């Protein structure tokens, strides 16, 4: 195992390397021998029934979840039990949550500048310029002085994406970014994500938006019961499922 390990560090193309990752919640085995390599610039969509471990796996990548066995290398840094090490990885990995998780006591602009100012130690002026640049990219620069509670769900989620982008991450993780949104707001968020994908950002996205997957994903991963069951290009995976489990899943989500 340690030999494989060294080989994986040498491979510079892979920005995320997950090897034999196992995680338990008490006795419950949530992640079983996960192996995954993500190339720089690759866009991956992760789907699967609820409870399949797809969110948990994604959250392991920036250590919001601990794992008990296996190894994880993000952008050349191996995840070990060390605060500095974990913080270093988190700086490279942006994360967008299902419930946005904007800081309600700060204005939109302050939400965006917090990371650059306190983590990257940038001067306030520079941080604000960066923040405004990304707010323009997600098309809500006019909301900069408002508080998160005054924005619609779709706007809040776009702010959350901009907040992550302000840290200039190498990798973006999306944990069901549209699941808490009304249907008419899903599109505005997906549009931003498509744009981001077109610019070559490395993306891992847990989502049920199959249209988005077909449009941008290089690879779709299907997870069930804590395992990666199938992975393939979107066309192959959706049109030519190899396992019963994937067939069942697809029939359930594509029926209506």
């Amino acid at each position, binding site marked *: 195992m340690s030999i494989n390990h060294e080989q994986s560090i040498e491979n510079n193309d892979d920005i995320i390397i997950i090897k034999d990752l196992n995680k338990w919640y008490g006795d419950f085995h949530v992640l079983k021998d996960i192996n995954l390599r993500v190339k720089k610039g690759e866009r991956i969509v992760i789907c699967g029934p609820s409870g399949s471990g797809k969110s948990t796996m994604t959250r392991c990548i*920036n*250590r*919001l979840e601990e794992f008990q066995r296996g190894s994880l290398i993000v952008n050349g840094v191996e995840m070990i039990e060390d*605060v500095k090490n974990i*913080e*270093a990885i*988190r*700086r490279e*990995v*942006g*994360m967008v*949550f299902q*419930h*946005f*998780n*904007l*800081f*309600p*006591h700060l204005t939109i602009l302050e939400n965006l500048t*917090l*990371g650059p100012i*306190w*983590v990257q130690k940038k001067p306030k002026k520079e941080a604000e310029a960066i923040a405004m640049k990304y707010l323009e990219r997600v098309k809500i620069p006019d909301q900069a002085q408002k*508080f*998160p*509670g*005054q924005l619609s769900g779709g706007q809040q989620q776009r702010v959350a994406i901009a*907040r*992550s982008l302000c*840290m200039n991450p190498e990798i973006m993780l999306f944990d069901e970014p549209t699941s808490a949104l009304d249907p008419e707001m899903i599109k505005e968020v997906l549009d931003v994500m498509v744009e981001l994908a077109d610019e070559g950002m490395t993306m891992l996205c847990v989502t049920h938006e199959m249209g988005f997957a077909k449009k941008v994903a290089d690879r779709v991963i299907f997870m069930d019961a804590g395992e990666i069951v199938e992975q393939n290009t979107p066309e192959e995976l959706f049109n030519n499922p190899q396992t019963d489990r994937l067939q069942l899943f697809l029939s359930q989500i594509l029926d209506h």
Partner: protein
Amino acid sequence: MKEFTPLPDKPAPNDVVGIIPWLKDNLFPTPLNSLVTLAIIAFFVTVIPPLFDWLFFSANWSGTTQAACTNKDGACWVFVIAWSKQFFYGSYPVEELWRINTCLLALVAIIVASFKLHKDLRNKIAIPLFLLLPFLSIILLDGSLIGLEYVATDYWGGFTLNVMLAAASIIVAFPLSFLWALGRRSDMPFIRSVSVILIEFFRGVPVLALFFMGSVMLPLFFPEGTNVDKLLRVWIVLTLFMSGYMAEVFRGGFQAVPNGQYEAADSLGLGFWQKTLLIILPQVIKISMPNILATFVMLFKNTTFLLIIGIFEMLSTTQTALTNSNWLGGHSTEGYLFVAVVFWICCFSMSMISSSIERKLDTSHKN
């Protein structure tokens, strides 16, 4: 396709607006309610006029001695007026009263400043000033360190002492209790158990018992010959007592901050203290504000218990005045009523300030 137009607004029906329908709906909707309304009106009519007569119209206002209270059907406010300096300032030397006033003005000024200042300045200026204020006040009131006339703490007293003790206690208790609450949530067993023991001790022991410990027991633990001022000991006791309560208030606040806030802060790469101070603490304070204030009002009123260990706060000054040989005319109603009104006005003002802070902090979001 026909274009959608909403229906025009209609006025509310006549029988639900105006005074008559309001009276009918709220005061006389049923025979029983009408009866209750009439009974309450009758009660006010019989009680209010004599009360106002005693309080104001027949009351004795002018004069300096007990002899001036000629009308026995009215309150003797002369007693309160004659003793007002002691009630407010205790035995502090008259020519040095400006020091107390300066301290109180500074307290008010900082409170006002923390409302009016811009957010960035508030954190940089008002908070450090708040934390320094108790210590600067002690130096000024004591006077010996800065070349003013030395005033021993035995002469400090009256209502201003209640205010300053309560304020000084809460100011120091604020950071202390926050650390205790943080410690209670810690993963580190040693820090957690120390925090739990401290919190539960100071919450579980009656405040009067703590005062006696502070004044009688605590000196036994100091090395022979050291004399720690009684007021200082009381201040420490009040601070620790307040910290125990506020730590629990803060703990409730911590639990109410959604997990997503911690995760979002973590995912940005913020360190533990950055996350705690920039993201979690502001939200904890906002959530806990009503309870922090309730705890503070409780502490403020508890300062009157200090009369038992011989601190000359307002209530004990009032009792001294009541037993003064020149004023043995039975003015306890006036005296205690005055104490009650002064405390009530202060506590009520604090409630108003608190709700104003809540409105200011409420950026109307619940997620």
